[in-house]
């Protein structure tokens, strides 16, 4: 089961921080929640949405190295413009949401495992 990233964005009142022209092409089939970069590198898989409250530039480096296409910041965490620029450069979609990591993960889980 995979869904378009737009479906998640709608459910979590998400705001897209990066260039939005590629959104239609981003399909998600899973998610990973972590604020430890080495844990993400060791365990995250391609095409997962990474839900985090970390907003340092290293987040983009890790997402790029692990081939993740989307990072979702919880609790309205807003990264600096330099982080957004780097994400655009790497082709990684950044979203921020007022929801907590728990709520975002719950919404994504429901989306992917209906019924």
């Amino acid at each position, binding site marked *: 089961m995979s869904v378009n990233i737009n479906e998640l964005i709608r459910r979590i009142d998400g705001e897209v921080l990066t260039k939005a022209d590629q959104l239609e092409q981003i399909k998600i089939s899973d998610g990973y929640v972590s*604020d*430890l*970069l*080495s*844990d993400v*590198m*060791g365990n995250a898989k*391609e095409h997962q949405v990474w839900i985090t409250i*970390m907003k*340092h*530039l*290293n*987040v983009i*480096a*890790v997402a*790029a*190295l*692990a*081939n993740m296409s989307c990072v979702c910041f919880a609790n309205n965490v807003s990264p600096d413009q330099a982080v957004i620029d780097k994400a655009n450069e790497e082709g990684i979609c950044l979203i921020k949401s007022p929801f907590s990591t728990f709520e975002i993960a719950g919404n994504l889980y429901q989306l992917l495992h209906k019924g």
Partner: protein
Amino acid sequence: MAVYCNISEDAQQKYEHFTKEKPNPEMSIEYKVGHKDFVNSGKASSEIKLMLKRLGVNPEILRKVAVASYEAEINVTAHSLGGDIICDIYLDCVHIKFIDNGPGIKNLEKALEPGWSTADDLVREMGFGAGLGLPNIKKNADVMHIESAENQSTILQIIVFY
């Protein structure tokens, strides 16, 4: 001097062949890593990944190289006084050597234990310092070789076969 070496089962034969043949690298690149320079740390690893991608290396192998190399690069940034990365690209593998300027690892056996870390607050604020760096390198590299001692350089070498 403490030495640790891990060779994945699948890579035993390839590694034996590699050490016997001692081929010349197709390409060799060097990078500098600055002490606590978290802004630039990771650049070498992403350049290495991009180069291998252009050479047509498959995405799963790219991910393994990128993760192992990035963890090692972060280790040099976070724990050492800075150092050098030498990346040798061969027809069937990549060999990356990380040589820092000390101060060395006091207890290598401990450092290899998942969850054990000497990271300071700055490193932890950056999202690192969970004690998973060396275990991640071991998990992703086909060959991992590390030598270190207190007040000396640490030399970490990784090889990933395509």
